[in-house]
């Protein structure tokens, strides 16, 4: 085994241990009474956090590989904002009754399908046409994000106050109110797309070389990229449905993963990103909730750190040019 691989493997082992410790602490710290109830309650929440961490980390890595850049992520491109927009549209045209009274599982599935279809069209237009410059894509992404968010906010304003309240949940990231009914559906969906993704995993490394080199090595580029983008869209939809949009989380964990493992190969970066995601969410929630007794701050802390990372990457990119 070569030195770089040894280092990457060592990093993975350490991250694995830290992630496991975070999960255990999350489950057992500060349990006062009623172990049975607490463990089920916390277990559900833990599972949700892990699914979210996994979905965001994997979708971000895949997205960056396909677009051959290290700054853009699905959420920076405004695709979780798209999900919020869809939710708002549902309330706007069907009333909050639709959001609340319809069986959440079919509704969720429908949202995932609509979101995937929408994102697929947008992604294809952006990434399967001519090669575009990174700066243009950052701009397009920011414009899309602002457009989707403002459109949602505008329509929310037109709603009556009752309906607005039922929308709030969807508009802000929250790790405390996770819909347990959706959790099992999410697990099944995530497992299913992961199985599909597993078939593409060897092609991912080749895609890092860029479109031209991948084609010349015999990758059926359009098909492969379309499939990966579909996987990304589903994962984004799942994580956004569970906790709401978090703009910079994916960027934060994937950039850290790259820094820590050194090598850009997917065997290392994918698991490292997922483990870092779990550490951030589960460990962060444990520290804030159990140690400092804060309840809502995690999303803000993550956004702040992720935002700093985004600025640092942009400045580094600018310096290199």
């Amino acid at each position, binding site marked *: 085994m*070569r*030195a*770089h691989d040894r280092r990457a493997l060592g990093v993975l082992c350490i991250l694995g241990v830290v992630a496991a410790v975070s999960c255990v602490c999350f489950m057992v710290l500060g349990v006062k009474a009623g172990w049975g109830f607490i463990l089920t309650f916390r277990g559900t929440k833990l599972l949700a956090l892990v699914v979210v961490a996994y979905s965001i980390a994997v979708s971000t890595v895949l997205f*960056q*590989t396909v677009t*051959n*850049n*290290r700054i853009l992520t699905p959420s920076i491109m405004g695709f979780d904002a798209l999900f919020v927009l869809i939710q708002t549209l549902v309330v706007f045209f069907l009333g909050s009754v639709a959001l609340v009274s319809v069986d959440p599982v079919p509704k969720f599935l429908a949202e995932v399908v609509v979101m995937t279809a929408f994102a697929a069209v947008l992604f294809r237009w952006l990434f399967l046409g001519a090669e575009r410059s990174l700066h243009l894509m950052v701009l397009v992404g920011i414009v899309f994000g602002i457009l989707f968010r403002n459109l949602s906010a505008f329509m929310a304003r037109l709603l009556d106050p009752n309906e607005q309240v039922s929308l709030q949940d969807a508009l802000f990231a929250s790790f405390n109110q996770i819909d347990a009914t959706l959790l099992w559906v999410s697990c099944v969906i995530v497992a299913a797309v992961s199985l599909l993704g597993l078939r593409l995993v*060897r*092609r991912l*490394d*080749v895609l*890092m*070389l*860029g479109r*031209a*080199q991948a*084609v*010349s*090595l*015999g*990758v*059926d*580029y359009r098909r492969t990229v379309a499939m990966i983008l579909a996987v990304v869209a589903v994962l984004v939809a799942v994580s956004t449905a569970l906790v709401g949009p978090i703009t910079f989380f994916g960027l934060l964990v994937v950039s850290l993963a*790259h820094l820590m493992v*050194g*090598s*850009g*190969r997917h065997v290392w*970066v994918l698991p490292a990103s997922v483990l870092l995601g779990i550490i951030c969410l589960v460990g962060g929630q444990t520290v804030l909730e159990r140690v400092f007794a804060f309840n809502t701050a995690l999303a803000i802390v993550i956004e702040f750190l992720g935002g700093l990372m985004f600025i640092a990457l942009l400045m580094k990119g600018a310096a290199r040019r």
Partner: protein
Amino acid sequence: MIVIEGLRKAYGSTPVVDGVSLRIPASGITSIIGPNGAGKSTLLSIMARLMEADGGTVIVDELDVTRTKTDLLARRLSILRQENHISSRLTVRDLVGFGRYPHSKGRLTPEDAGHIDRAIDYLHLGDLADRFLDELSGGQRQRAHIAMVLCQDTDYVLLDEPLNNLDMRHARGMMQLLRRAADELGKTIVLVMHDINFASWYSDGIVAMKAGRVVHHGAPDAIIRPEVLSAIYDMPIAVQDVAGKRIALYYE
């Protein structure tokens, strides 16, 4: 043999490849020369199905490049483009290993490992094999990319300005290596060259392009002539015979 028939490509209303028809014989080195913007890179990209033409065909050994399955073609024809941007960190050995992807789809066999070691050896990358690409000089990185293409072990090899960034020793070593690949293994090698003297010394045939058209195609003797070169490059170029080869002098 590569047969190109009526190839056209335009950006907007500006033709970049303008009705190119060409026959490149199998086994041997063919160099494409011509001023900047003549359409050499575009032609090479279209030949390797990296870019779509507006019209015309490219046939490599009876295979139409736009119709053949891309993974089948990847085992027959390889290309190195003029510029290669990789956003992630890879070692030289990782990169060279990708050359085996068309054959083993990412599961490297012992035979693949042999190919990789040999390619690394040929390009004198042994000491650098475990370095990351972003820790190399431009010339070292260029050699790593060429090692990857050679590792693909295809009958047809297209290289766009392979001598970019290489020092004299490595440039000569590269051309000798390509010459051996053509002579001993029967490879068909197509190069885009800026150093016309290297092209003259090592090629079997030279194709001269200007403004999207092929203006000359022949043996080095027929192309490396003062009147031909002066017309291609729009400047006076003298030619002398040195050790039985033709050398262009254009420094003053």
